[in-house]
């Protein structure tokens, strides 16, 4: 909401400077987002038109001689305004001046005539929308002096963020009330005049359903001549971001901005009665913007008893639009059901200053006052007369606000500061509440415009915010001690993160969405996804089922400039439940990617996972080969993840040029797996001996199988672990194993170890046809 300070000052004296006022408003709950100072009109000087003759090559243009400095040669300026004439004092912009629209004025040749400047209209100086003619200054204006002296003063406008509960602040007077309350000043009471004609207003109004429209007030003004509203009014509308249209429409907008009541004026030539009803199914109306709108039974419409004249609270119909030819108007000032207005405005995409106010609820006392005010302005600007009497349907008397009982102890208990009876009363009264004290409690009747004050806690907040929270003492609650349980998901994720960082992997985070295309590119499309109903772009179409696609994309980008990429993400994925009435499963996944030539990325990631799983000490963990290039991670027969080389197809998609491996592990499930308590082994008394043995295998044998066979050979074999594997030139496969021997009872001699090695060689030959190479 935009608040021009000059307008505010009509309702309340303001002694603070704009910055101080903004700060005071902000810390009391009306956040000032910006203090806007409209640019002063600069660089425009007063000139005198000495002569204005018709342009030789254009009927509508005049070539003017304009004097800018006494006793100096006049300048030649081409001007298109119909009202320019010799003898006028005018506003002249010289070449080099930046106009209100941001363009710099240049010397120009207009249809063969040099033009050395411009005589300005209002719009060109940012003073209004008027472009019908140039500004003519009073004769006293002196040639050569800055024109700003004769033009309206630039406005200072506060831009406020008004919260949805405070519809009452969406007006100049509403904000004036706030300013009065926070600065402890009195409002200037504005009594608006009303002069009615003796002729009676015979318009009949009816409301079909009082819930849709609790009150409808109409006045009739006849014999008007619709022109423009006064310049200072237009300037105010513009300062509030409202475009001036004509005097009648401007008057309704002006009063809406001033008092908060949105109103509508109908061209009333043909309208004899008003009926407020629900729209019929598929009823149509052409609105002011020229669009044909399809209505629904949930929409409220204003009708003449037969056809719709306007969509209530949202937009008028084209047929009854007030134009410059309008002589008689019906002025509507009403309240409508906030929810219906909101739904209709949202559905039609027609949210406006008016609908915004209706949907937040209006002061029930406002409709009458605003109707009078706007009719008075219309007759002041357009002539004509206000017919005697209002047509009213619905609420005749003000609903009686319910008093709220407030205990002082409650105020103190909630705020944590001691507020005296007197201070609390004073704050509430500053907000125009009626306060009755009995003992330590108050009976508080809020003013009619504060629809948000319903319960004691609402009053606690009012008292608190006027005291400025920044002056409150600070305290910390005494938190009762108890055993704290860390969610296992969290501790597992946290531990995993640390372990991966130590392994040289960098953590990334990616979006929870991906596109339909991504899903099909990565062969995920045949699995069910949750779809976003209102994605802002195709990349937000689906909730991710897997971390893989985005992680690979990052790896692809990073791989362009790096020899090695090692990244991981820990994040949720979304698996829709069988019946999609239920919330999806949201497992926390660990995704890992390694891209590099050497060492083999698959072995790097597998090593990282082996280390991670070993550190958790799971009871039964296995990694099974599942396809040619991938393996499945299984704990106690439950698959919890996969690890695999990134195939050519995906590599191409994300432009990976080097070998890559990806793994995705379900950490939520990992967190549930059974663990064995960690027990350390007693330190060996006698040293271990290791031998590296390389075998030439005729065909690939799973590592687990090699280990099984070798470990059976002798109890002195402590461990077997492969460390190198490659194809020999003769087609055989070389597998190098590190074998550790140890005895609990003695230091092993070379001979003893050699004996076992020989046995291993023999068994390898027997089982796999393998030759010992070294």
């Amino acid at each position, binding site marked *: 909401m935009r608040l021009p300070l000059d307008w505010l000052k009509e309702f309340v004296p303001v002694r603070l400077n704009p910055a101080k006022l903004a700060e005071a408003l902000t*810390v009391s709950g009306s956040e000032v987002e910006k203090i806007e100072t409209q640019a002063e009109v600069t660089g425009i000087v007063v000139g005198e038109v000495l002569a204005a003759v018709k342009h030789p090559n254009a009927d509508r243009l005049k070539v003017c001689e304009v004097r800018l400095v006494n006793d100096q040669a006049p300048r030649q300026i081409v001007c298109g305004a119909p009202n320019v004439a010799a003898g006028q004092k005018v506003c002249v912009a010289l070449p080099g001046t930046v106009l209100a629209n941001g363009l710099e004025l240049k010397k120009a040749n207009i249809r063969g005539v040099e033009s050395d400047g411009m005589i300005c209209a209002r719009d060109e100086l940012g003073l209004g929308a008027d472009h019908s003619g140039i500004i003519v200054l009073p004769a006293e204006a002196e040639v050569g002096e800055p024109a700003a002296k004769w033009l309206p003063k630039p406005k200072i406008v506060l831009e406020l963020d008004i919260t949805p509960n405070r519809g009452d602040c969406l007006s100049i007077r509403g904000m004036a009330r706030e300013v009065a309350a926070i600065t402890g000043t009195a409002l200037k009471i504005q009594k608006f005049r009303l002069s009615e004609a003796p002729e009676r207003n015979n318009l009949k109004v009816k409301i079909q359903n009082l819930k849709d429209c609790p009150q409808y007030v109409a006045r009739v003004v006849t014999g008007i001549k619709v022109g423009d509203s006064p310049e200072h009014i237009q300037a105010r509308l513009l300062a509030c971001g409202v475009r001036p249209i004509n005097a009648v429409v401007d008057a309704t907008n002006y009063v809406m901005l001033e008092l908060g009541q949105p109103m509508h004026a109908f061209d009333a030539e043909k309208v004899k009665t008003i009926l407020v009803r629900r729209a019929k199914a598929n009823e149509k109306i052409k609105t002011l913007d020229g669009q044909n709108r399809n209505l629904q039974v949930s929409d409220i419409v204003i009708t003449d008893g037969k056809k719709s004249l306007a969509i209530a609270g949202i937009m008028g119909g084209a047929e009854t639009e007030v134009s410059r030819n309008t002589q008689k108007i019906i002025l509507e000032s009403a309240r409508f059901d906030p929810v219906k207005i909101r739904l209709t405005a949202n559905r039609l995409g027609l949210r406006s200053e008016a609908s915004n106010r209706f949907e937040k609820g209006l002061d029930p006392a406002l409709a009458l006052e605003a109707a009078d005010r706007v009719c008075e302005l219309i007759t002041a600007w357009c002539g004509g007369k206000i017919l005697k009497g209002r047509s009213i349907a619905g609420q005749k008397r003000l609903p009686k606000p319910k008093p709220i009982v407030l205990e002082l102890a409650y105020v103190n208990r909630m705020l944590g500061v001691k507020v005296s009876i007197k201070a609390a009363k004073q704050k509430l009264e500053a907000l125009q509440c009626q306060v009755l004290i009995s003992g330590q409690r108050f009976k508080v009747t809020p003013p009619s415009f504060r629809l948000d004050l319903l*319960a004691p806690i609402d009053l606690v907040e009012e008292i608190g915010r006027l005291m400025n*929270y920044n002056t409150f003492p600070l305290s910390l609650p005494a938190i009762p001690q108890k055993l704290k349980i860390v969610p296992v998901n969290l501790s597992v994720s946290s531990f995993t993160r640390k372990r991966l960082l130590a392994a040289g992997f960098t*953590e990334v985070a990616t979006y*929870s969405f991906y596109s339909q295309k991504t899903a099909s590119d990565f062969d995920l499309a045949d699995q069910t996804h*949750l779809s976003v109903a209102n*994605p802002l772009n195709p990349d937000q179409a689906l909730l991710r089922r897997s971390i893989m696609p985005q992680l690979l994309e990052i790896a692809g980008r990073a791989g362009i400039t790096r020899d090695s990429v090692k990244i991981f993400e820990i994040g949720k994925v979304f698996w829709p439940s069988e*019946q999609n009435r239920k919330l999806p499963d949201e497992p926390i996944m660990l995704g890992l990617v390694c891209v590099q030539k050497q060492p083999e990325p698959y072995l790097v990631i597998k090593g990282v996972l082996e280390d991670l799983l070993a550190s958790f000490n799971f009871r039964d963990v296995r990694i099974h080969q599942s396809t040619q290039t991938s393996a499945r991670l299984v704990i106690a027969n439950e698959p919890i993840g996969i690890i695999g080389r990134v195939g050519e197809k995906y590599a191409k998609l994300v432009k990976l040029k080097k070998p890559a491996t990806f793994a995705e592990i379900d950490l939520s499930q990992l967190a549930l797996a059974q663990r064995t308590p960690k027990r350390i082994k007693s330190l060996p008394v006698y040293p271990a001996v290791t031998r590296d043995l390389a075998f030439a295998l005729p065909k690939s044998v799973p590592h687990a199988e090699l280990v099984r066979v070798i470990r059976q050979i002798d109890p002195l074999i402590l461990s077997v672990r492969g460390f190198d594997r490659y194809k020999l030139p003769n087609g055989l496969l070389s597998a190098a194993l590190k074998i550790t021997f140890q005895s609990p009872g003695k230091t092993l001699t070379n001979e003893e170890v050699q004996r076992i090695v020989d046995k291993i060689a023999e068994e390898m030959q027997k089982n796999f046809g393998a030759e010992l190479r070294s």
Partner: protein
Amino acid sequence: MRTEIEKLFQETIRQIQSVKTSSDLQALYFSVLGRKGKFAQLLSRLPNLPPGERAGLGTLANQTRNKLQQAFDQAKLKFKPQAADSADFDPTWPGILPEVGHTHPISAFIESAIKFFSGLGYEVAEGPEVEYSRYNFDLLNIPPNHPSRDLWDTYYLKNSGPQMLLRTQTSPVQIRYMEKHRPPVFIIAPGRTYRHEATDAGHETTFTQIEALAIDKNLKLTDLLGTLSAFFQHFFGNVKIRFRPHYYPFVEPGLDLDMACLLCHGKGCPVCKYSGWLEMLGAGMVHPKVLKNMKVAPNRYSGFAFGIGVERLVMLLYGITDIRLFLAGDLRFLEQFT
């Protein structure tokens, strides 16, 4: 034999003194005291000597060897400083960096925030990112078709049954937690949240909040203010903060916390929209209606809640001027964090 030992000793001492380089000294050492050196050779003859001659020779040999060892050690020191100024050593040469990964700044911050709140006595709770509209709005005192819903631009999901959405805030965790727990309750709930809005340097569709909920007897607004001040002091030192009344339907009194913009030091910049202040979080006393929805009696208990916007905080901590960097997966950004 005795004289031979003497002679070897004298000769070696002389040679040690005339040695010029460290490697010569090494060679000399091996030739004398090495496993097959002169000394060892000499001693290997010892068993063959008649017992009379042998007497005392062992002791002498040992003493002599110790003295020689000392002489060598001494001489070695002579060559030490030479190592420092030799060409193969430059103490300013860059060290070999350990190959460790980098934590994402958001998860790093969440971990430190959890530490901070655990220290105060808070527990950690979790909740789903896909929520029912009922938990994200209705039970938080945000009725359907209420203008206050405009405060949250929302991603809705296509599903049958009750309306699902991507939670716009971590506050639904409050309701979920209170379905299973009774006061006193002091929890935090970090997690992802979503807003249906166009992205720019200051706005993301996907961001992180840390929700806090405290419910106990006699909790008051000043407890909330004190807790928030402590949090900001912990992470930012003596930075200027400001409490500003604000409206959130699930709290009352409700407020926002602004922090003086650290990027421009309050002078005004595009990030703080030239106001000098940055909105960091929303907070307030739990609304009595919400307490009732949690089946907690508002006349016996009170509570406070807040939702910290993590990205904003991290941006200020590190001087990050574009929120989109957090999810861009640009390693040049991420590798700047430890």
